[in-house]
């Protein structure tokens, strides 16, 4: 929330760092934000797929046929690269963002948090891929 009255401290005008947007560490930062476009698009594509599933067999078959188009395949391959990039960067960042204490408890050591995130990611990916791919159920 904004303060109720302006503070007394004078602030300098923001200055864009000279390495922004693709120099030094800013490249990964900018790319991390730019994955937002792919997430937004793939969310709407997934919405189309779910909508087609609810529209009956003919609509579902047509949707699957469209997903085989090379543009869709290339888009999904790019999204997979983005998703892996986001996961790796976020899983490295997440342990550093933990508070020093959570109530009476201290959070686990950073490497342990990171290992748990990777384990959860691998477990969810393997489990759901098996279910979707017909290996389970």
């Amino acid at each position, binding site marked *: *929330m*904004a303060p109720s009255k302006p503070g007394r401290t004078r602030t300098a005008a*923001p200055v864009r760092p000279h390495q*922004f*947007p693709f120099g030094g560490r800013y490249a990964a930062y*900018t790319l*991390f*934000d*730019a*994955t*937002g*476009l*792919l*997430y*937004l*698009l*793939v*969310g*709407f594509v*997934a*919405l189309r*797929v*779910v*909508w087609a*599933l*609810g529209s009956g*067999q003919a609509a*579902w*078959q047509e949707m*699957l046929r469209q*997903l*085989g188009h090379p543009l*869709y*395949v290339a888009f*999904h*391959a790019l*999204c*997979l690269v983005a*998703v*892996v990039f*986001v*996961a790796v960067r*976020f899983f490295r960042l*997440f342990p550093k963002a933990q508070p020093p204490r959570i109530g009476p408890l201290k959070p686990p050591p950073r490497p342990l948090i990171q290992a748990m995130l990777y384990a*959860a*990611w691998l477990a*969810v*990916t*393997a*489990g*759901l*891929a098996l*279910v*979707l*791919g*017909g290996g389970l*159920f």
Partner: protein
Amino acid sequence: MHRLLLRLEPLVWLLFGQGILIGTMLLTPWLLVVGLGVPLGLVPAEALAYDRAHALGSNPLGRLLLLGLVALPLWKGAHHLRSLSVDFGGGSRDAAVAALLYGLAILGSFAAVAAVIRL
């Protein structure tokens, strides 16, 4: 508008954070199987036969997962694109950009709820 965005910030950050964490975890198998595996013939097409896909998607857990798969990445996308817009264009247009992007995420989220209800 700016005050409203500030008030909504905790909710937006919750959805954005879950979009990164849960959205990424759900998108990975979705992209591997639905986006690439079946179209490229690496996974048998029968895995996504209509009856099987509908049975998987229409049970309560399936609906919940599909809702998360669709809605959460929209919020991650909207918030990161807003951040990118501020970084490149400054804050003068932030309210309009945020309204547009969060509006898209809200519309998509409601559509996702409708999509999983009609399964």
